[in-house]
């Protein structure tokens, strides 16, 4: 198997198919660690991981923090409110000051696309992009792939429908890259106002009929309607969106029996996903969260596990 050479994880595009498969395989081994009585291995003892979140996060931040702690790394979590960012310090200055304290890895989330790349280029520690603007969220895509592969046994040849607010979704972008690279057939579905122009160039199909997408799909990836990113009027109303593109039990009657439904969280229940579907048999939302820790452990191990290159 090809060995890991990457110093940072900024987006999915930079990973080869073999590297993605290595992450998935390594994640499988790490999943077992979290089921032990002592949920900790000494692998990253003495390493320091800083979680630098300029945007709110619950799942991703806790997931990274648990992943680092279960590998025995020390973690420090910084959010923009309550740090010098609120005093007007630039994110690069904040990051440089953190570097000066000899940390080994920075996990970074920022509302500006490309911010983690700027930090990675300027700093010596490894950088993991935990979400930058509408651009990329590579660890989410990797944990989605892991969840799909664990449930359905493969990625290649699967029909995956990504439904909702594609325009503002870094999760959708990273997943499109990852899924198409591994040979899945991706169809996007959502309101035309929330569909990025020329998105077909990434090798995906578009379909505006949700029922058609549901009937054809092995996997449905449902996105959160990102109200916080909508300064303009993209939709007549949330209610109309829910009626046109919300997934509910009635619509799922046409679905394949072993369809799985993913959602990156947090869910707007009753908007993109009805409560009974979110908690229903097709939903693997909590498995995604569970797998997230294992996938992030694998990535931390691959980036930090051996001597400095």
């Amino acid at each position, binding site marked *: *198997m090809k*060995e*890991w050479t990457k110093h940072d994880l900024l987006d999915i595009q930079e990973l080869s198919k073999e590297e993605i498969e*290595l992450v998935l*395989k*390594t994640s*499988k*081994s*790490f999943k*077992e*660690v979290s089921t*032990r*009585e*002592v949920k*900790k*291995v*000494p*692998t990253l003892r003495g390493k320091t991981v800083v979680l630098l979140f300029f945007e709110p996060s619950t799942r991703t931040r806790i997931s990274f923090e648990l992943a680092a702690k279960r*590998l025995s790394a020390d973690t420090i979590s910084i959010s923009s409110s309550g740090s010098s960012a609120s005093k007007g310090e630039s994110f690069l200055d904040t990051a440089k000051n953190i570097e000066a304290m000899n940390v080994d890895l920075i996990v970074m989330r920022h509302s500006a696309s490309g911010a983690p790349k700027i930090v990675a280029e300027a700093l010596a520690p490894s950088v993991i992009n935990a979400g930058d603007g509408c651009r990329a969220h590579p660890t989410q895509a990797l944990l989605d792939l892991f969840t799909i592969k664990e449930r359905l046994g493969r990625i290649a040849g699967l029909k995956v429908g990504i439904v909702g607010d594609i325009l503002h979704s870094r999760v959708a972008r990273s997943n499109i890259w990852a899924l198409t690279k591994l040979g899945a057939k991706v169809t996007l579905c959502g309101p035309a106002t929330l569909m990025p122009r020329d998105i077909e160039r990434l090798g995906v199909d578009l379909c505006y009929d949700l029922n058609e997408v549901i009937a054809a799909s092995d996997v449905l990836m449902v996105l959160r309607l990102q109200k916080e990113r909508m300064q303009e009027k993209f939709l007549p109303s949330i209610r109309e969106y829910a009626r046109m593109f919300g997934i509910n039990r009635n619509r799922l009657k046409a679905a394949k029996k072993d369809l799985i439904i993913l959602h990156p969280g947090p869910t707007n229940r009753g908007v993109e996903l009805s409560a009974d579907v979110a908690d229903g048999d097709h939903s693997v939302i909590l498995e995604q969260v569970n797998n997230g820790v294992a996938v992030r452990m*694998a990535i931390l*191990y*691959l980036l930090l*596990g*051996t*001597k400095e*290159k």
Partner: protein
Amino acid sequence: MNTSKLMDKEAIRRAITRIAHEILEKNKGTDDLCLVGIRTRGVTLAARINEEIKTIEGTKPPLGILDITLYRDDLTLIDSQPIVHETQIDFDITGTKIILVDDVLFTGRTIRAALDALVDFGRPSSIQLAVLIDRGHREFPIRADYVGKSIPTALSQNVRVILQENDQSQDEVIVEDAEKR
């Protein structure tokens, strides 16, 4: 390359049979007994010892698989990551007598890592070590309880255990000079 054969298929089979008998004698049967093989060839050997125990006693102790990569003490010294494989110990080891199985006992560092890993799973009443080959050159105060064959080696030599299940080639143990590898 200078190579010589230390054990052939029959010698390996007899060693495994003897080790199985010794384990049963020392532990007075299979009560509380379990086997844990260290990836990769320790797992194969543990499974074979387990079959042998079943032939002798009629019962088969639980068998676990241990990957020690996450406990290695040389991760910061090597250039590329070893692949992490799965550990599968699906039974509670607290109170059990564990027979830890590996193919070659050398510096003792693998066993040190395995002991650290095992105590994270629970508190066994004892851990005993079974190896097919003990080649000396210990760097830690570790010894084996059951040994297939002890052989003196030079540090520059490699000992290779070849097993049908892992290598798709007939069982044998060979020693070779290392400079070519």
